[in-house]
């Protein structure tokens, strides 16, 4: 299996966006599967969970967030898949 040619996009950005984890910055903001307003920031248009490198969460809070989103999905507070439009993610 050949990997194919590497795209010549230039040097990859190493720094990325140094976003701070929202939940670490503001300790009072808890992660609750019932708190849809907070959860919506971390779910894409199509209902997919936003990756950590985009949302800027720390590992611990991303894990808790994932669990909360999955619980909310189970109890029909959030959709499993929505949008169904042609746009990605």
């Amino acid at each position, binding site marked *: 299996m050949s990997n194919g040619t590497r795209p010549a996009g230039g040097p990859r950005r190493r720094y990325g966006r140094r976003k701070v984890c929202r939940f670490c910055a503001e300790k009072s903001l*808890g992660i*609750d*599967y*019932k708190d849809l307003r907070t959860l919506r920031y971390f779910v894409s248009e199509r209902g997919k969970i936003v990756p950590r490198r985009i949302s800027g969460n720390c590992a611990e809070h991303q894990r808790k967030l994932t669990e909360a989103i999955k*619980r909310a*999905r*189970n*109890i*029909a*507070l*959030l*959709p*499993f898949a*929505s949008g169904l439009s042609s746009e990605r993610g």
Partner: protein
Amino acid sequence: MRTYETLFIVHPDVVGDDLAALIEKYRKVLTDQQALVLKADNWGSRTLAYPVKKQTRGSYVLTVFEGAPSVIAEFERRLRIDEKVIKYQTVLFEGSVAAPAAAEKPVQEEAAPVAEEAAADEA
């Protein structure tokens, strides 16, 4: 004794008194098992994120209770049998609840107006 919370969805056709009666019935189911009911809130009718049992709306009821683990099994068994309950989920309760008022709901209602008066005085 752990604190659990169960969120269940009631069929949208069950309204008003029927809904109140249903919530009371499940509150009794819990207290009959020596569980302490800390909260039994009705969020009202909401649109579901996806159809459940072909319904697009449902009434959400949140109950927080404290008891032995065997309470959950019995509670969920009852929920499963009931046709009016279309979905339920029980999780370990995270967070804190104010001291249970148990049967003294008026106590909580008195506390609310007092808090409002205090806020009005400060404003």
